[in-house]
């Protein structure tokens, strides 16, 4: 198991290094460099060269790469050529916003999907099970921005329960923070919960057909108890994998919701950086996203053998 964790951690580090090389190469290969962008199309070549020297863009790519990577390792993502501002504080604050949003959304969707999917599997022949199934199918078809707009119209504009947009950091006021979080989290979670419900339902249905559930019943457990004692942990394995993928997708996928609710998340920052041709910011944000996705995968990879001894001993 320790070997396995070490090997996964090494894979994680190698992937991260590989990604940094690719990101850097792509950004360097793009035509038009930062100095040109900053000075506009009318700038003289001399002025561009002077600015390049000032930014250090005239140094060899290898040097610039290590400069960038070592800076990031020290927590410094560099300075924007476009705004002249430090990038690190922007990334730190926007990652916090997105992380809170996305983790809350996935947690809510798990809380909704596990009982609902389990129930839908147990009652698969009853109208309740069929209703849950149909509802989750419809839920998948609703794009999250539509859910967001409907939620805003109903709960913000009509009922006035929640603000329709904006962000407040927890330290500025926890009540205000929670109030502003509700609608974006719910609109993200609804669709994810619908998807996850279907996975939970099919995982539970698969597990209920397993021989060891029959053994559990033969031991004297009722069908439902057998599912709770023996089934759910087995069903958790595929569900965890799917939830990990969902979490990773949402990191960037939340960008539309961030825009609708005017949240300063990392998706919004990425969009802004791309629109401004702020290459240093784009590089930094993409690297942070890669890092987060890799961390999620690492956690899932380590969680599955913790649950499943078969994978543990194969590992």
């Amino acid at each position: 198991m320790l070997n396995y964790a070490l090997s996964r951690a090494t894979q994680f580090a190698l992937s991260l290094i590989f990604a940094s090389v690719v990101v850097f190469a792509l950004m360097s290969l793009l035509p038009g460099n930062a100095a040109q962008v900053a000075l506009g199309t009318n700038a003289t070549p001399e002025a561009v060269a002077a600015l390049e020297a000032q930014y250090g863009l005239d140094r060899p790519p290898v040097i610039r790469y290590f400069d960038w990577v070592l800076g990031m390792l020290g927590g410094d993502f560099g300075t924007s050529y476009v705004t002249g501002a430090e990038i690190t504080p922007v990334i730190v604050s926007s990652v916090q916003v997105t992380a809170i949003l996305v983790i809350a959304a996935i947690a809510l969707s798990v809380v909704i999907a596990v009982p609902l999917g389990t129930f839908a599997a147990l009652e698969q022949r009853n109208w309740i099970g069929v209703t849950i199934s149909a509802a989750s199918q419809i839920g998948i078809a609703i794009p999250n921005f539509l859910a967001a707009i409907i939620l805003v119209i109903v709960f913000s504009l009509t009922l006035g329960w929640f603000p329709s947009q904006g962000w407040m950091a927890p330290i500025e006021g926890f009540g205000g923070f929670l109030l502003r979080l509700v609608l974006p989290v719910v609109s993200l979670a609804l669709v994810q919960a619908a998807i996850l419900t279907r996975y939970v339902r099919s995982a539970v249905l698969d597990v209920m057909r397993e021989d060891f559930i029959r053994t559990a019943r033969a031991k004297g457990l009722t069908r439902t108890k057998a599912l709770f004692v023996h089934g759910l942990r087995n069903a958790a394995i595929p569900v965890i994998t799917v939830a990990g993928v969902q979490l990773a997708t949402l990191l960037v996928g939340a960008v539309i919701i961030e825009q609708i609710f005017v949240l300063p998340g990392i998706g919004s920052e990425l969009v802004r950086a791309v629109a401004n041709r702020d290459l240093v910011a784009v590089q930094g944000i993409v690297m942070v996203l890669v890092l987060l996705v890799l961390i999620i995968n690492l956690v899932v990879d380590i969680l599955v053998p913790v649950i499943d001894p078969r994978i543990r001993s194969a590992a």
Partner: protein
Amino acid sequence: MPENLLEVRNLTITPAGAETPVLHDVSLSLASGERVGLIGESGSGKSLTAQSVMGLLPEELHAQGQVSLAGHDGNLLDADERTMAALRSDIVSMVFQEPMSALNPLMRIGDQIAEVLRIHGKVPRTQIPARVLALLSDVHMPDPDSARYAFPHQMSGGQRQRVMLAIALANSPRLLICDEPTTALDVTVQRRMLDLIAERVAAVHAGMLFITHDLAVVAGVCDRVIVMYRGRIVETGPVDRIFSAPEHEYTRGLLASSDLEATDDHGRLFTLKTALAYTGPRMPTAEGGEGRALAPDDERRDPSPAQRTGSLRAARGGGADGAREKEDRAAPVRDSAPLIEVSDVSRVFRARGMFGRRRSAVTALGGIDFTVAAGERLGIVGESGSGKSTLLNILSGLDRPTTGRVRVGDIRVEAASARALRALRENLQIVFQDPFASLDPRMRVADIVAEPLIAAGVGQDERLSRVEEMLDAVDLDAKSLRRYPHQFSGGQRQRISIARALVNRPQILVADEPVSALDVSVRAQVLNLLTDLVDEYALTLLFVSHDLGVVKHLCSEVIVMKDGAIVESGATDDIYANPQEEYTRRLIAATPSLAEALAAGGRVESGI
């Protein structure tokens, strides 16, 4: 209260939405402490009967009738899940067929045994750990103390089945239902498991309902037998009566087709159709000669070689019967170079760590040597893990040996190019074990059978005619061409597999446990078909099996394998009559035989 332990009255089971029941009007009873065998083929309804008693019927099946169990008032079929759960394992327990999947893979063995004690609360909580240990010792688990902390995947099939038995008997139920508990196990393990079941059932004074398709197994462990066929009970009676004087035609057929030692006039196994001529299991008599236990209906047939001249063989253009031909045909080609030559083949599987670091190595084959002459019928026998399948994969070019050389015809298999492998596959074809998994469910039979021809570049018109011809040869009608695999039974699917293997006229047919997933009566038919085709196409046969009876019937030469090495090899008759190695002796002794089981019970007077 002189009532029976189990009483089933007019049990009828109908699938939801269907008109015709799958179980018709089944009535049976089981006295306290009685051991009853429930025999039948797949689909006969024997498992459904057991599931009704346990309250474990799938939801989509509706049961009518009356099932009563001593210790519970009223009809079990009307009981709710909670009531049934309380009865299960307390009064009636069950051991299932598939030990590999019957235990929760995420839970330690000790916890799984402890759970059944906790549920019923018969043992004080503080004593549960000690009781778990005692139960594991009772089923003769090696090192019961550390077994408690093992996960199921760390145990062999036999060990898992011991755990299942420990769980089933933990609360000393009055009735134990065994649903094919040894079918998935190796023969030597099966024998020990059967002894263990008999021992433990006697120790806790339980009654037993033993479900199986294997008549030899029933004869060994049961007092009384119930025979089921297509959802009905066709016959019931004491073991010796059923096996010596079966009244129902089906029972006789089952008996005949499960006896691999008996052949009909044409040297073929008996099937349900030809069972009338069957004269019962060959019994060793007091004088040391051989007699037959079953009195024939009218005339006694003496299966002497002279009388066995086959009309079928004659019709197909052959002359001698199968048994004699084995020797006839093999002899003249012995002198020439062997068709298959395997020298010093080993195969080591390495699990690789990160950066190619070697972590562990498993030697699946360690230095195998043998040759096969053209026309020979070679049986390869061994238990699971003996390396049989690895050897087959290497022979057929699906895997490469770590060291050693393999020659098939003039092809060097271990170093073969893609083109040479294609040539090899035109000459060597395989029939796989599982007829349900080895056919692509989305392809029509015509396309499945034609596939080797497409690979060989045969034109479309000729393909069709050869496919039709081949289907005819395996006794499937032309209507089958347009159908999909799921529309066929297991035996029919195996016929399709055989047709696919033989359609481009290979010289060599490799069969990997082709009948182990089939019912007894179907097994006889498929084996007969194989024998016919091997004769007709003059095939060289490599037949892998764990079933020594099947190999003995079919093969002229045999190789016995254990732990990746050849333990013993030679002419089949010699090896069986006079095994030199301890392992071979154990293997032969463990193979359940009808005659032996009956003789051991002293239940049958030998035939005249």
